[in-house]
């Protein structure tokens, strides 16, 4: 019932070009890609971003099956978005169900947004699939470091992520144990309506929280005993270094971004303003 697959199990360990990139480069590329995806406002832009995403997936050697599986949770949102656009966008009707009028611009707009979502999900999941949690935290800490001068707690965020990742399996195991103990004493977690089921989780959450706080207390003491005193003066065993391939990947991302900006200027929005 409780599975650790959501956050931790995401990393897909194979050797590939994308896996071997510096985590900082990958985070940066992902951010640029996300922004540029929303700059693109027509299908030509999708040809560019889509090709880039397909290229990245191919180079990552992650099976499409895995990525498609990742899309499953958004199927509902996607269909909902398409339907909303289909029936609520004004324009020339293609068919009609009762008072609802499906329009051609609506269909185009709906598909456009759905496609954007698909590319977004595929590309961003590529980041966590190809980067191990440690690399990810290391990269994040390094990227945030310049902002620590304006008060961004870079080291603290990274340390929090590391500890969270370390304790997710431990706490899941503990939740499972508490649940079994409660079930052995007649607790029922599976029947009843949503409200009753939520209520039955209280005897699970209370001991889980109590134990999490006790763990936190002990961990803090153990960290202190090992001379932990925050990020100042601290070194790292793992050193990140940007190599030629990271620059190639970043360069390609910039070329891709420029192309998307060009399509925006040259072709304009998918449904030209004033036509509806």
């Amino acid at each position, binding site marked *: 019932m409780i599975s650790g697959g959501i956050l931790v199990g995401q990393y897909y360990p194979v050797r590939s070009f994308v896996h071997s990139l510096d985590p900082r480069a990958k985070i940066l590329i992902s951010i640029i890609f996300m922004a540029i995806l929303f700059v693109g406002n027509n299908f030509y832009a999708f040809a560019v971003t889509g090709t880039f995403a397909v290229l990245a997936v191919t180079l990552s050697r992650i099976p499409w099956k895995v990525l498609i599986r990742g899309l499953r949770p958004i199927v509902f949102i996607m269909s909902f978005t398409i339907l909303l656009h289909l029936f609520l966008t004004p324009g020339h009707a293609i068919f009609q169900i009762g008072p609802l009028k499906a329009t051609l611009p609506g269909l185009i707009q709906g598909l456009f947004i759905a496609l954007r979502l698909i590319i977004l999900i595929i590309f961003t999941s590529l980041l966590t699939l190809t980067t191990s949690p*440690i690399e990810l935290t290391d990269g994040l800490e390094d990227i945030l470091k310049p902002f620590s001068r304006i008060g961004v707690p870079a080291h603290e965020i990274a340390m929090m992520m590391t500890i969270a990742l370390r304790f997710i399996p431990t706490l899941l195991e503990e939740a499972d144990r508490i649940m079994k103990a409660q079930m052995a004493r007649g607790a029922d977690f599976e029947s009843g309506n949503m409200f009753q089921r939520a209520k039955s989780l209280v005897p699970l959450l209370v001991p889980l929280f109590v134990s999490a706080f006790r763990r936190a207390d002990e961990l803090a*003491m*153990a*960290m202190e*005993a*090992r001379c*932990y005193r925050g990020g100042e003066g601290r070194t790292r*065993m793992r050193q990140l270094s940007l190599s030629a391939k990271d620059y190639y990947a970043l360069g390609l991302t910039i070329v891709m971004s420029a192309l998307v900006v060009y399509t925006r200027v040259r072709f304009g929005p998918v449904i030209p303003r004033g036509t509806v």
Partner: protein
Amino acid sequence: MTAVEKARGLEAEGVVFRYEVDESDKVLALAGADLEISQGEFVVVLGPNGSGKSTLAKHFNALLLPDEGDVWVFGMNTKDPELTWEIRRSAGMVFQNPDNQLVATVVEEDVAFGPENLGVEPGDIRTLVAGALKSVGMEEFHRHSPHHLSGGQKQRVAIAGILAMKPKCIILDEPTAMLDPSGREEVMKTIKRLNEEMGITVIHITHFMDEALYADRVIVMDKGEIVMAGTPKEVFGQWKRVSQVGLEVPPVGQLSRRLWSSGVNIDPGILTVDELVDELCRLKSGI
């Protein structure tokens, strides 16, 4: 006394410590503990729950500071805030729950945590981590996730995490309490080896009487005071006093005493299986 005279090992002088329950209510955990531990010694601290043994251990790591008295760690007074980090580096501490003291998601990252905090150069950290993992026999697990290790293995990783800081002393606060028998043995053998081969001072706190047999010296605590001290034989020889503070003589010790009191001609102070076997063989061949 000057710092130089105190440079021998670890020393507690009339340490009094009270835990604050709330503002008016304080619980006396240490009532004037005096203890001297020389470098290279293997000391086991025994005592019933609430006897103050963990509290005393935390004083040697400067995690707690005495309300009265002084604690010296290799000549450094724990009250000096400037020395806190050097004290924690030279007297490392391993705790009871293996899950709650491992910080990172990969074994080698966790072992590197201490040296990283001390600001050691990245290249040197690698050497320290590899050496520490080798000393506890966990080198082949260096890329594993701590979550998938057994309790005994986790504790050995925790010990490696301390060793990577190149300590002179390791304080272990009931490291075997949550382990199964084989895990306990794993940990005890590791500690014993570190003590013998690397000359690391060991202060081992436990409520398992048989673990006291590894020690050069056994300290028994009760109600915040040190009530007995000596070699395992000396301490468990006073079996009446041992049971008064709520402890038990190890099973083999009980057996040899009962054999002796029922007329068998053996030394009632025998504590280990090997010794008892030798003694019984001697008796048999002597007949």
